[in-house]
């Protein structure tokens, strides 16, 4: 993947709030691993591009659904509503990946992959916002920001704890979800009340 190819990405694929120099690329993976922004998870990526973590719920009973679920297992409804959730959760499972596939993984050191249990109830697999060689412990709180992979914003964890060395750099332009973001619900332990908004996407 040469730089001129990256630069030729259609402007429409670039996140609106992407950093000025997206060609610098993601810290972890090559742009070839960019997810399909217009595919089955389009509402998630559209939300992510606007700095929101947008996930599916049953429109009828409000149950948190899996990313690829098409009918509610609680009530059977097929109306699925994607809406922003609190960008906070805890580590449910974690691994430090040592095998780095040449051409796809850019780093030279092991990298973390986390299964994060969000306060909304969803569980979402993500890596960290920035490179780190340590794996956070299960149960540790995280907040969720976004990496930019090949022009597509994808959720990533900021390790929000008392260990200063693992805090994200607040000046990092790829971190639109810094805890200071005024419109971000900060309540801990409870999911935010459903807030209908223009960013909701029904599917």
């Amino acid at each position, binding site marked *: 993947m040469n730089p001129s190819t990256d630069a030729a990405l259609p402007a429409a694929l670039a996140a609106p709030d992407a950093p000025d120099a997206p060609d610098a690329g993601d810290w972890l993976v090559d742009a070839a*691993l960019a997810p399909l922004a217009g595919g089955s998870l389009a509402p998630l990526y559209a939300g992510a591009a606007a700095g929101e973590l947008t996930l599916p719920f049953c429109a009828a009973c409000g149950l948190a659904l899996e990313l690829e679920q098409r009918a509610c297992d609680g009530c059977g409804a097929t109306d699925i509503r994607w809406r922003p959730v609190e960008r906070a959760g805890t580590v449910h499972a974690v691994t430090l990946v*040592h095998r780095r596939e040449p051409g796809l993984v850019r780093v030279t050191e092991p990298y973390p992959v986390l299964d994060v249990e969000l306060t909304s109830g969803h*569980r979402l697999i993500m*890596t960290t916002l920035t490179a780190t060689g340590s794996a956070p412990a299960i149960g540790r709180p995280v907040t969720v920001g976004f990496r930019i992979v090949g022009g597509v914003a994808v959720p990533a964890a900021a390790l929000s704890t008392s260990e200063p060395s693992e805090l994200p750099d607040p000046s990092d332009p790829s971190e639109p979800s810094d805890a200071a973001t005024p419109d971000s619900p900060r309540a801990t332990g409870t999911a935010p009340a459903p807030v209908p908004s223009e960013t909701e996407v029904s599917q």
Partner: protein
Amino acid sequence: MAPPLEPAVVGLGLTSMSLSAGGVPVDLAIEAVASALADAGLTARDVDGLLVNSSQGVRPDRLGVALARQGGLGDLRLLEHVEIKGATAVAMIQRAVLAIRAGLASTVVCVFADAPLRAGGTSGSTYAHSGGNDGARGLERASGVLGSVPTYALLASRYFAVSGGDPEDLCAVAVSTRAWALGNPDAVVRKPLDAEGYFASRMISTPLRVLDCARPVNGAVALVVSGAATPGPAPRIHVRGMGQAHPMRRRRAPGESWFGGGRAAVDGALAMAGLTRADLDVIELYDPFSVVTLLLLEEYGLVEPGQAGKVVRSGATAPGGDLPVNTGGGQLSGFYLQGMTPLAEAVVQLRGAGGARQVPGASTALVGGIGGRVDHHACLILDLEPSR
């Protein structure tokens, strides 16, 4: 019309298991089918059913029902490409038995072949480039989850948190399974292994080391299931019990996302067989990663919850132990041909053909196949005696 005899496994054929590139699935399948038919004393003209199991993911050379034409078979009454991910091989045997009992076929060949090892690349590289960029998998891949090891590493991380297990438990599985492989000429890794060797092996994705992962091979296995008398010398291996379970775990709080719910498959199979867990002489499990052996021992009710690591560390599952598990070296040290690995080993053991690894007097086996992320369970109770 009911078959003349209780449907049974009457033929087993394995290709050589190759750790290097070469061979295409259809050719490997044809070789295994010919070997299984010869083992049963049959020819292609005796076959009226074919069930095909391919590797998951769309690869241009994946096995399909075209094998019937390409493999030189005659007219068939049953032909299906079965797909329940890794649980397929075990489910194919269930399907074959039911079809024979229903009079829909009399002699059914079940085959799986795969060739993930390619020139110029490792199997790990093949898997790392598989999965696409859409859906949940696309999001995971963009997050660095390439191949299946990081996924099972997350499972292992969670399993440890719930069960109190640790890497010593994984080590015990790898060492125990390797000890069995030493006695299996079809196993691809037959070098003695101890804890020191295990902990010196390369980390892939914590806590899983390379020795916690299955050994992919290019190869094939075929079985012949028949309700007719066959001239082969080997004893008929009867399918006394069968069961499936497909727990719909959800990726959300508060349940476990990664495991739980497979026990019903074993309970159902034992009930059908009229047997209990104490009657099982050998346990053959689908073990793509060491942690899965621990998980399934608990999930299938073969050990108490949270005790799998302790049981394996005690040597109970190793040669000479009283709970023999994956007696051919499993997928970790034997060969990774998905559900065919535990299935073939169960047949070998019940035939008494296990040579140096034979469990004395083995007459009843549990075969457990899993698919997806331990989402699908299919199991069999195989027995030298027919159903009562």
